[in-house]
């Protein structure tokens, strides 16, 4: 049974499609040589082309096209070898030309698919309708000046990929999972940094509701939602609003809305309503974008392994669970870290260490893999010390904590602290004998049938040996001497 919202008239299904604007990672802008770097002094990253000066003309950036193609390949989508740019005409203070150069009729990337995973482990495919390249607008700020809005064109002309999904999403959870998965893929590809706080990824959320089995009803578009959490909240808030509208006998009108996180509600953006006739037509300052087959093939060959494939490979190659593999491929850095630790070692043990003690340590320190004091090589070396019986599992935890604190290699710590495990049977025999001698009463109880006490003897021996005794030998010796 899928997600539904209960209204006065019964259950409602939620239908969601997303248009995600992802800022392309590139040095310069889509159609000009100005820097695409985020930030900068006002109007510093601006050329005459970006500011729409008379006689200025766009010239397209090859890398931005390559990034769109890479993303298309990553979304298992159709790459259109012939595409075209159109002008989308509307007036706004931060849109210098009075039009946005976009791809309306013929996008560079066609249909594709993204697989999402829900909390209960269900997998679902979300269709991609298209991906097209377009320019970002500048920034209007309304709170910098008492009586004016001020305009900064640094963002104007930066390349965006607009990734449009099919209306396949049926719940806030699915919407959130979709955005996260898309972000993960873009980050793996290196085509967008996915940084929603800086606005380099933002979603227009199209929401409608319907009764089971109905055709789609009217949708509303919630503009520029800038976090996964807000996307999920916006879907629910808008769906609830629409249910109320329908159930009160009114009709939902198609419009663009804004999500207000403070109030947890959406509201109408009347200011943009009158300008809905965009008068698209082919951009006459540009020629058709024709992609060379060999060029696309070369990009495909250099594509990194993507999370879904990597996850499957991890299961097969390292024998770890599908769930664990999912955690380890969350991003490229984590996956690489794990593989360095696991390679040539007990891969399951490696997974336990990375997901257990290592993640816990990162969490505790509030740090990331990049700045972690424990490197993958050192964690691997620690596993080697366990494998060759230099230390036992208990001591390994102690060594790991020292690694977190000092950043030192595990063998150095083991030597300095003298943590090498004792395998000398003579020393173990003596320690066991001493414990048995000191606990005659317990020995009697044990022999009387209280076998649970075995652990007590082992514990006492290990304590006496400062936990450095080889656990297998200690076990054997305790068993032998108690017989």
């Amino acid at each position, binding site marked *: 049974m899928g997600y539904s919202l209960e209204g006065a008239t019964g259950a409602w299904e939620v239908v969601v499609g997303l248009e995600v604007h992802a800022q392309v990672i590139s040095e310069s802008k889509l159609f000009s040589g100005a820097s695409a770097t985020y930030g900068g002094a006002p109007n510093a990253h601006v050329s*005459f082309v970006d*500011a*729409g*000066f*008379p*006689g*200025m*003309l*766009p*010239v*397209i950036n090859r890398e931005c096209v390559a990034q769109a193609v890479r993303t298309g390949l990553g979304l298992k989508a159709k790459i259109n070898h012939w595409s075209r740019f159109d*002008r989308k*005409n509307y*007036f706004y*203070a931060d849109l*210098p*030309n*009075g*039009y946005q150069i976009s791809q309306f009729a013929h996008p560079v990337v066609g249909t594709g698919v993204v697989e999402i995973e829900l909390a209960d482990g269900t997998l679902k495919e979300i269709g991609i309708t298209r991906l097209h390249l377009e320019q970002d607008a500048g920034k209007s700020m309304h709170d910098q000046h008492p009586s004016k*809005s001020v*305009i900064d064109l640094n963002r104007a002309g930066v390349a965006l990929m607009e990734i449009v999904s099919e209306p396949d999403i049926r719940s806030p959870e699915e919407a959130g999972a979709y955005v996260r998965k898309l972000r993960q893929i873009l980050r793996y590809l290196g085509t967008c940094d996915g940084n929603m706080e800086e606005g380099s990824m933002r979603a227009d959320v199209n929401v409608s509701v319907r009764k089971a089995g109905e055709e789609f009803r009217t949708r509303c578009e919630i503009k520029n939602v800038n976090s996964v959490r807000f996307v999920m909240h916006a879907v629910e808030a808008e769906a609830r609003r629409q249910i109320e509208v329908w159930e009160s006998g009114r009709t939902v009108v198609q419009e663009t809305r804004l999500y207000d996180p403070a109030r947890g509600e959406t509201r109408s953006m009347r200011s943009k309503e009158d300008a809905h*006739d965009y*008068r*698209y*037509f082919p951009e*006459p*300052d*540009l*020629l058709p974008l024709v992609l060379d087959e060999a060029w696309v093939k070369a990009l495909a060959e250099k594509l990194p392994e993507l999370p879904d494939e990597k996850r499957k490979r991890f299961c097969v190659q390292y024998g770890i669970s599908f769930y664990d593999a999912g955690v380890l491929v969350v991003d490229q850095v984590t996956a690489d870290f794990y593989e360095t630790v696991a390679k040539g070692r007990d891969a399951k043990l490696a997974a336990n260490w990375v997901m257990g003690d290592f993640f816990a340590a990162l969490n505790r320190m509030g740090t990331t893999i990049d700045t972690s004091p424990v490197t993958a090589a050192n964690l691997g070396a620690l596993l080697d010390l366990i494998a060759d019986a230099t230390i036992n599992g208990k001591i390994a935890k102690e060594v790991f904590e020292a690694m977190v604190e000092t950043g030192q290699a595990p063998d150095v710590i083991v030597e300095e602290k003298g943590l090498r495990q004792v395998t000398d049977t003579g020393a173990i025999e003596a320690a066991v004998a001493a414990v048995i001698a000191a606990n005659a009463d317990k020995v009697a109880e044990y022999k009387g049938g209280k076998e649970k006490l075995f652990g007590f003897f082992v514990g006492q021996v290990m304590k006496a040996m400062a936990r450095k005794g080889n656990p297998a030998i200690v076990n054997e010796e305790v068993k032998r001497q108690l017989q």
Partner: protein
Amino acid sequence: MSKAVTGKPAAAPAARTELCGLTIAQAAAGLEARKFSAVELTRAHLAAIEALDSRLNAFITVTPELALEQAAAADLRLATGDGRTLTGIPLAIKDLFCTEGVRTTAASRILEPFTPPYESTVTAQLKDSGAVFLGKANLDEFAMGSSNMTSGFGPVENPWQRRGSNVKLVPGGSSGGSAAAVAARMAMGATGTDTGGSIRQPASFCGLAGIKPTYGRCSRYGIVAFASSLDQAGPLARTVEDCAILLGAMAGFDAKDSTSAERPVPYFRGAVTAGVRGKRIGIPAEYRMPGMPEEIEALWQRGVRWLKSEGAEIVDISLPHTKYGLPVYYIVAPAEASSNLARYDGVRFGARIDGEDLIDMYERTRAAGFGAEVKRRIMIGTYVLSAGYYDAYYLKAQKVRALILRDFEQAFAKVDAILTPTAPSAAFGMGEKMDDPIKMYLNDVFTVPASLAGVPAMSVPAGLSEEGLPLGLQVIGRHFDEETVFAVSGALEQAADFRSKPAVMAKGA
């Protein structure tokens, strides 16, 4: 520089305006031989402007100091034998070309306060060739017009007059200021732009040669855009050879214009005297329009005879979609213009009229800044692109445009060049044809098809009307075959031997 030998204290030497009568080719030779200096040549033209332009209004901005500086620099180069093709040649620049540090208005009040901090590629190349810029020539506002009557800086008067009449005539448009300046010998040549005939029609009206090269031959970078898929820069001058010299300097690939062609620039000047022997010249039946004056038809037939006697083969051809050129043009050009002119919103440059809010500011700024014709075209362009009308107008026009291109391709399978009249009439009076936009649009009936197809086309002065006004013939060539256009035009020029001069021009020229 010649100095007075009378012993009297040296006054400013009288400007030698007779130098204004030279062609560019002659002047370049004279400068090279040090018969006169570039400063003298520039002074002569500045004096002619001083004397005539308060009447003709061919210039929106004159830059005498800059011109004299450039001329002095040219003299230094010439002295060291380092002269280039245009070193020291004084030109007028259509005020649609952005010139760094010199106000550029597009003849619109909305750009009245605009000084570009950059230079168009075409003018940069002319400067590199050593040219001297006298100032910025008047034009129809944003190049929208065929009379120069739509300029926000007042109309331009044609230096020619009807025999025995003082009626002020239009120079044609939109490059009307450029044409008037060259015809009146206030400049040796000028840059123009041609979107639907804006070089060829004023050339015809003012007794000049003027060529619209192949779309993509000259960079559009830094030229205020009217209709991007049609706009092309080109020269106006008094001879075909001068046009060839100027185009050689203006043309060439530019990475800053995505529609610029990556092709070498041929030696155009050499093509002018190549002759037409064995060339096949097409005569399109559809250019014989109902109501066309007899003298235009007669001129055309003369042209045919001249080319025949020079050894060309005359071939009757058909360009069946000719009559649809204007309707296509009056959809495509306004559509592109409505979008290209959206940037004039009073925010980043140009004039601004304050309003109650942002939208009110836009509306007031654009209502006050644009003239009637520009507003009309923006409105038409907005309409034909708007929801529900796009397919019926814009898309349909694009398809007919494809048919017009196909007409030319089919014709050029049979012929090397096409000969037609340039315009359906000689220059008309100021205020005539103003009551009905369509009447004005009909001026471009013969020039628009080549613009839509993107092929090169040139107007050559070929004779006088009964009233004593110049009339031009148009030569149309294949894509990127300006050489044949120059060859045919050169032959026509030779045969026509056009020596008539306008009523108003530099003294002694």
